[in-house]
């Protein structure tokens, strides 16, 4: 670890996203997954949960409503009664009655009537991970025995629809997806899902390569996004694509308005806690991934260390300093900075070997290509408010 400055570079928090890992276990085995421990059936204890919620509410980081995302493993492998207790625990410690939303990002294979009733009863926010029609989805999102999971996912989403539970979709774009914008569009329309987010296949942790890490991938992605933009814009009802909405907002922001600081670059805007109680901040994927440079990314364990102390810890200060230097590097060198805000630390670290770096494949694919497409569209027609 490098020498550490004691000056605070960025005000920690406020907490925006609390990412809790109820279990690292996932019942499926996607080939591009970044979770190293997804066969482990460990489960977060009520002692850890109690400490997390207690510390969160007494840390000074809660200054606005925030979201709890149950993630980093398939959250629905634990039964509704587990979450019933967890929500009650949080509510009991939330003495100031801060608005807290609970969210699940799920592969949808385990959604049944019990889950739907629970989701409705608690007004939970649901995101489904599905990569498109079966011929795309089943290439990467498989069971441990190598079978495709599409049919089960579809069944789960159908159940959500029967219960009139809204959900958004996040699809991972691989090279295989890029020739099929029309098929993906038709798929989302058929689902009745009008909110879509595209994640590009990333290089991070155990996923050391990406099918998009090739010189021809960016023009392929550009063609895909351009076609999808046209389809989405003409759709009735419209389909909101997270990437397009964001790029439009950034490009149309009044002159002189700086990009908002990236949640992943702000200390303690995200707090991630694994099922053993280890906690970290910045990109949630960092927790659990190795680093010889910082001796790991965990800032402590919630059973023995406090969030308040972690904010002042040399490890956090070192990571924060390097992340900040990377953002400054982006600002100085990248023409897209005003429409981005400085990139994602986890991608910089695992692609470039350092937080103190700038452009990544992730930047080129998930930000630059999107800005290129949306700017091109806006130059040619007045904005269509979807």
């Amino acid at each position: 670890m490098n020498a550490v400055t004691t000056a605070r570079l960025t005000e920690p928090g406020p907490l925006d996203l609390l990412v809790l890992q109820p279990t690292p276990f996932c019942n499926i085995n996607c080939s591009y997954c970044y979770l190293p421990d997804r066969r482990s059936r460990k489960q977060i204890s009520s002692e850890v949960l109690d400490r997390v919620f207690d510390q969160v509410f007494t840390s000074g980081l809660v200054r606005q409503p925030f979201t709890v995302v149950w993630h980093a493993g398939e959250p629905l492998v634990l039964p509704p009664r587990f979450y019933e207790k967890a929500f009650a625990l949080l509510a009991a410690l939330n003495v100031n009655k801060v608005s807290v939303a609970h969210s699940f990002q799920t592969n949808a294979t385990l959604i049944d009537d019990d889950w739907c009733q629970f989701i409705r009863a608690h007004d939970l926010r649901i995101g489904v991970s599905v990569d498109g029609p079966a011929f795309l989805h089943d290439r990467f999102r498989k069971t441990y025995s190598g079978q495709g999971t599409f049919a089960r996912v579809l069944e789960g989403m159908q159940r959500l629809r029967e219960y009139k539970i809204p959900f958004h979709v996040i699809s991972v774009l691989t090279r295989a997806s890029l020739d099929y914008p029309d098929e993906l569009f038709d798929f989302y329309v058929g689902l009745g899902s009008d909110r879509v987010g595209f994640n590009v296949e990333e290089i991070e942790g155990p996923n050391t390569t990406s099918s998009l890490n090739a010189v021809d991938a960016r023009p392929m992605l550009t063609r895909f996004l351009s076609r999808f933009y046209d389809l989405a814009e003409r759709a009735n009802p419209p389909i909101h694509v997270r990437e397009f909405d964001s790029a439009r907002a950034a490009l149309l922001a009044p002159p002189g308005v700086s990009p908002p600081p990236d949640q992943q670059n702000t200390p303690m805007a995200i707090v991630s806690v694994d099922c053993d109680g280890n906690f970290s901040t910045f990109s949630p994927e960092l927790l659990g991934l190795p680093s010889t440079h910082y001796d790991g990314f965990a800032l402590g364990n919630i059973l023995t260390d406090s969030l308040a102390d972690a904010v002042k810890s040399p490890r956090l200060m070192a990571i924060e300093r390097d992340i900040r230097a990377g953002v400054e590097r982006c600002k100085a060198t990248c023409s897209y900075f005003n429409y981005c805000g400085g990139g994602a630390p986890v991608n910089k670290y695992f692609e470039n070997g350092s937080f103190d770096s700038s452009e990544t494949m992730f930047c080129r694919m998930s930000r630059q290509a999107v800005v290129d497409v949306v700017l091109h569209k806006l130059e040619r027609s007045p904005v269509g408010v979807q």
Partner: protein
Amino acid sequence: MENQKNEARSQAKKRLQALLKAAIGGVVVAAATLATPSAEASIAPALGKTSLEERVRDMRVAQTTAANQAELSETLLAWGNWGNHWHNWHNWHNWHNWHNW
């Protein structure tokens, strides 16, 4: 002497142009069509800070003359609120406005 050479070149150029128009014009047009980039292919990455900033500035000027400016500033920017958030979660902040099943 030099003038004569220039005149000859000019005449030759005119004949070539006429020939292209009359005889092989179709081929030229076809080739030009093939060479014209598609809408998607013409979406080039921004080459420099100035270039991108200028394009964005010009686009904003054009957009602000559009009649839907009020909608643009409120609805559209609100939809963009998820920006700069962790991408493995959706972060649409206006989730509660959405009940359109």
